[in-house]
């Protein structure tokens, strides 16, 4: 049964330049271009800690919390963004917040994350583990967008969250938040 992992222990991704080897939870080894690998702050940190030692040897960085199937997906994302993203200066906090609210998710990323919610969650966890902020943010935003379209009851039902408010508390909260239950504004109406 476990022949898959053992039979495909090394999947080579042909990239020029320095290669970084990482292994997933299942032991599958991936060889990444340095630029791609360093998009993960965790890998970057490890590489920096290792210094010159990491070049040329066969050491493999173990990513014990990332499953192969999720890593494959993340790899797709990393490779795409390594090739398409421009070098960005670190944003000021305010700019980051503005971007958080005002910028839409790019089309490619939308397609990339057009998967089942559980997979998104897994990618998000893996991105968190690997410290890939942009991917983590994209996943968070995607999940947030999903949650925003749901009612409180739907969210409780979907995610099995227990309603631990007392009826009195719930009623009180409902009153407090009644104002935000307005109907969506009608587009194009005159005032």
């Amino acid at each position, binding site marked *: 049964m476990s022949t898959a992992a053992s039979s495909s222990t090394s999947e080579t991704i042909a990239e020029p330049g320095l290669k970084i080897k990482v292994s997933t939870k299942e032991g599958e080894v991936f060889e990444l271009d340095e630029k791609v690998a360093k998009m993960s702050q965790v890998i970057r940190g490890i590489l920096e800690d290792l210094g010159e030692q990491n070049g040329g040897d066969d050491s493999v960085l173990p990513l014990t919390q990332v499953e192969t199937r999720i890593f494959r997906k993340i790899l797709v994302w990393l490779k795409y963004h390594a090739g398409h993203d421009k070098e960005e200066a670190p944003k000021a906090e305010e700019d980051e917040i503005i971007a958080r*609210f005002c910028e839409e998710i790019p089309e490619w990323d939308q397609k990339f994350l057009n998967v089942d919610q559980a997979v998104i*969650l897994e990618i998000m966890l893996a991105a968190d583990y690997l410290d890939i902020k942009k991917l983590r943010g994209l996943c968070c935003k995607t999940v947030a967008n999903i949650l925003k379209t749901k009612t409180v009851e739907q969210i409780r039902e979907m*995610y099995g969250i227990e309603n631990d408010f007392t009826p009195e508390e719930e009623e009180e909260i409902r009153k407090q938040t009644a104002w935000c239950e307005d109907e969506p504004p009608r587009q194009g109406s005159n005032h």
Partner: protein
Amino acid sequence: MPVAALSSVSLTSAKRKDDGADQSGSGQASVKMLKREDAPSLTYVIHNLPKNVKYSKIESFLSPYQARAIDLQKAYGPLRLVQVELATAAEEAWVFAKKDGTKFHLINSQLPRFVFLRSPQQTQADIEQLPAAFAALPDTILFSIFTYFDYLSRVRLSRVCQKWRGELGRGRTAAKRIAYINYTAISKVPTFPKFRISSQLTHLIIRVKSYAAIKALKFSISHHILPAILDEVWLAVKYIRLLNCQLAIGATVTKVSRGGQTTTAGLFEQVTSRRQWKLTIKCSEVLLQATDRSATWMQSLIRYCATANLLWPYGMEQASWLNSCLGQIRKNDPEHMQTIHNHATSDFAGQYGHCPYLLAPAEHNVMLAGRRLNKLDLAMVAGYVQLANKSASVTNGRYLDYAFSKKLLLPPQLMPDTVHFDESFPAHKALAITFKREVNIEA
């Protein structure tokens, strides 16, 4: 359910089939456009394929472990992939159907190590495990998701559970700041001509249901941002017709002395029509302090004051303000003064004659109006007022007399201790006797 048969399927063959798929292509044009990398999940592929596509058509886009499904097809004959029913943290469930309609649920668990079939009931049990994936998220990630909520969503979803409420509630300060940043950022974009507000702002406010804008507004005021912003936010809020937000803006405006005039005047219309009297007064105070006072709105304000039934609890405050208002008009807009004065006093007194003490500060105006308009009722009220204020004069005696003759009597508590009496008006004495009050009559 022949689990054993399926699990004994050769992985090698499935892998080979998958590896060869890139060269083989597919019969579907839409499929051909996809590469494996662009098809991160089977779900994605399915959603981008025409309905009823044969499973064999998409096999080339499956990852190695997914390719095992092909072996399922080998075992059970031609199958059609109906849907991907669920995906948990570790599993995807695909539903295949045979030609006769028989459905098969295929679970890939701990892929790519094994594949096995389960009954639909078992699959349902797996579906129920889905929430666990979300519930098991670390707080840091869960709270990161929350940071992408707009203010409205934060408030709304704080009802989910105590944990969510605690976090979403704590984030309000941050939300306020975010709203402010948002606002200042988008207020720079060109104006949307139809509504005289920026399209970006409209978009934002629609998206965040205005409350963020309100927060932004408050923040901007505290940071001495120009009143023009108030106007723009006001228009946007008015455009989307959110009364709560309008009132919130109003409450904010009243705290500053230099609120935008469009905002304040517009707010005034709103609050007066909804009889938000306290807000009306405060709003008016702001307008009074504005440099460009409009007699038109002030007139309408006074008329409102005169006709609204909400005057009672705020009577003295309002009356005081009314005098101030009239004084301002007198100074700044004498042409309108007379009209305003007439309307105000007549309406005012006519409406509130039954509670004359409310009119105390304005009694002189009331009386004047009554005389001018030859309305004895008004004048009588004015007389009552003066009487109540212990300043009844002889000249008002005739009105009191009139009132007495009409059996329109003062409430006992309003009877003065001392009445300046004119013998020509015996009603004074009669009034006092009626209410069994001692009256010092001064000849």
